[in-house]
């Protein structure tokens, strides 16, 4: 019995040392010297091949004739909105009349809104038309064939037993920020393509990017040192924040403190005035968006002055959903989801620096930067405030719409015609 246990202990010790050796050789060393062994590339290629095969299996099983290319994986929504502007619909027969048809127009608009609205659509994870073998992304988990089921099971085993412990071990704390970040990215099987490195943010500038998940920070940090401006989180996220941010160059706020804009602006100005300090990284949307569109940029960071370096980040949704829905998942659930995805593949584009012009106001400048980022990453631009994820819309917007309608009906004060057309 004793011998057995010893034998076991020895075997475990051997396995452990093999793990550690593998880890050091293939992950730690290359990260320190920032060299890529191409393992991630191979891995991603293998995953792509497997997904293609799986898709074919699904299609054969369902017996549909569609040849859905893997490129077209993004669904566009369930209704096609009627874009006729209110003026055209309501005017109808005669201007200046109140027409029964107006009620019809507004009830139609109401039904469209109930069926689907642009804002909440951005806050649910992107739907994929094909299944990427993660049960999370498929709403109907149906048994299609034995082969597919076998692959799925193996996939689970690999992900949960092989990749997960490997990654968890990989998450040791590290003093140097960039090594830590690169390590983190490697451990998540992150494959990041950086484009236009010549436009990388310089010291004393402000780096502005679209926000999808906390991983954005990790990815950008693996390629350059930044000072972070962010919300202080509680719980596990707060611990991670504290341990990763030992250097004093970071600026953290409470969300409630953000309301004191002067304070924020003062701190930002101080930071960029000192040319020796690292560039500040800001996510002007203020919250995580699901990576299909860019929402309203809050004007605070654009009022401060200084050079803005826009960065566009686009995740590839086939390998795993990087979007963090903070109202739905806690950081633990999110972290777990990320760790058990296939990989995190994304493209980062560094865009040429932009400066606010003399006559421009901050909001216009923010929109300009937003358009540039969205164009590069292939995302749509929305004027909506990301804060709508949490709060309701302002009364003033509703009144705007009503005022517009009134003007059409009243028509220069000639009231009282009141004809039913």
């Amino acid at each position, binding site marked *: 019995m004793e011998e057995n246990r010893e034998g076991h202990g020895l075997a475990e010790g051997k396995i452990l040392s093999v793990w550690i050796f593998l880890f050091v050789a293939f992950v730690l060393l290359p990260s320190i010297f920032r060299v890529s062994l191409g393992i991630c590339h191979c891995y991603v290629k293998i995953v792509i091949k497997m997904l293609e095969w799986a898709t074919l299996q699904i299609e054969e099983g369902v017996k549909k004739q569609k040849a859905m290319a893997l490129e*077209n994986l993004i669904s566009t929504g369930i209704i096609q909105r*009627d874009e006729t502007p209110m003026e055209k619909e309501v005017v109808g027969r005669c201007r200046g009349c109140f027409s029964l048809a107006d009620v019809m127009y507004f009830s139609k608009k109401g039904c*469209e809104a109930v069926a689907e609205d642009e804002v909440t659509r951005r806050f649910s994870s992107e739907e994929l038309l094909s299944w990427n073998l993660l049960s999370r992304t498929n709403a109907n988990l149906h048994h299609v064939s034995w082969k597919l089921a076998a692959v799925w099971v193996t996939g689970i085993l690999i992900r949960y037993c092989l990749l997960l412990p490997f990654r968890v071990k990989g998450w040791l704390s590290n003093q140097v920020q960039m090594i830590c970040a690169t390590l983190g990215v490697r451990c998540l099987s992150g494959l990041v393509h950086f484009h236009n490195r010549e436009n990388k943010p310089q010291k004393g500038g402000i780096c502005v990017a679209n926000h999808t998940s906390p991983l954005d920070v990790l990815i950008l940090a693996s390629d350059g040192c930044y000072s972070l401006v962010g919300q202080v989180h509680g719980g596990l996220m707060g611990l991670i924040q504290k341990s990763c941010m030992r250097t004093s160059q970071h600026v953290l706020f409470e969300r409630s403190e953000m309301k004191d804009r002067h304070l924020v602006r003062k701190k930002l100005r101080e930071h960029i005035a000192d040319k020796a300090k690292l560039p500040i990284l800001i996510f002007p949307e203020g919250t995580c968006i699901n990576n299909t569109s860019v929402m309203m940029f809050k004007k605070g960071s654009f009022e401060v002055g200084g050079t803005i370096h826009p960065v566009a980040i686009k995740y590839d949704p086939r390998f795993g959903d990087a979007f963090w829905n903070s109202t739905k998942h806690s950081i633990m659930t999110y972290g777990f989801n990320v760790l058990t995805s296939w990989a995190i593949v994304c493209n980062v584009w560094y865009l040429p620096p932009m400066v606010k012009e003399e006559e421009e106001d901050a909001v216009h400048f923010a929109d300009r930067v937003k358009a540039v980022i969205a164009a590069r990453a292939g995302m749509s631009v929305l004027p909506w405030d990301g804060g709508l994820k949490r709060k*309701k819309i302002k009364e003033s917007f509703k009144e705007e719409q009503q005022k517009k309608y009134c003007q059409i009906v009243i028509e220069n004060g000639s009231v009282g015609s009141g004809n039913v057309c």
Partner: protein
Amino acid sequence: MGSAHSVPAEMRELADRTGFTSEQIEHLHRRFKQLSQDQLTIRKENFDSIPDLEFNPIRGKIVHAFFDKRNLRQESDGLAEEINFEDFLTIMSYFRPIEMNMDEEQLDRFRKEKLKFLFHMYDSDHDGKITLQEYRNVVEELLSGNPHLEKESARSIADGAMMEAASICVGQMGPDQVYEGITFEDFLKMWQGIDIETKMHVRFLNVDTIAHCY
């Protein structure tokens, strides 16, 4: 999507009754779950989470319409406290576009249903007639956002509209005659000539057509 081989029986029944395809029903089901926050029923409060709807001046009436038992094709009258997915689909089906293969009779019925839906929106006290006060309410709601508009102007618009309606429906009225209100038949008369079938619909997309476009 990796969809099932066989469509469940309830789904087919729903599809037959409401006229949606099974994919559309699936999409709407997902939207329903989103609105109800994974509960089985929706209440009025759940509609507060739709930012787009806030813009709509007759938002109150639209939400009301979802819970109106007359629209839900139930025998009783009044307002329901909460609706399930089937009821949700029933209301959404009022906004279905016309199909190519509809015959005269079907088209007529379709049109009447849509008009009945609108009629119920006006007739808030459920007595089968749109009175002057109810008409005024609708006009006021539509115009309520404008601070420059006095209440009087809204009323005069509504009064003018009612008079016009009376002349269409009853013809010349004597000085002592009182026009009680617009009944559904009168309402139908007023809408003659306006093609509601092509205007009052929401274009629901078919997933098949999206995939084939590439």
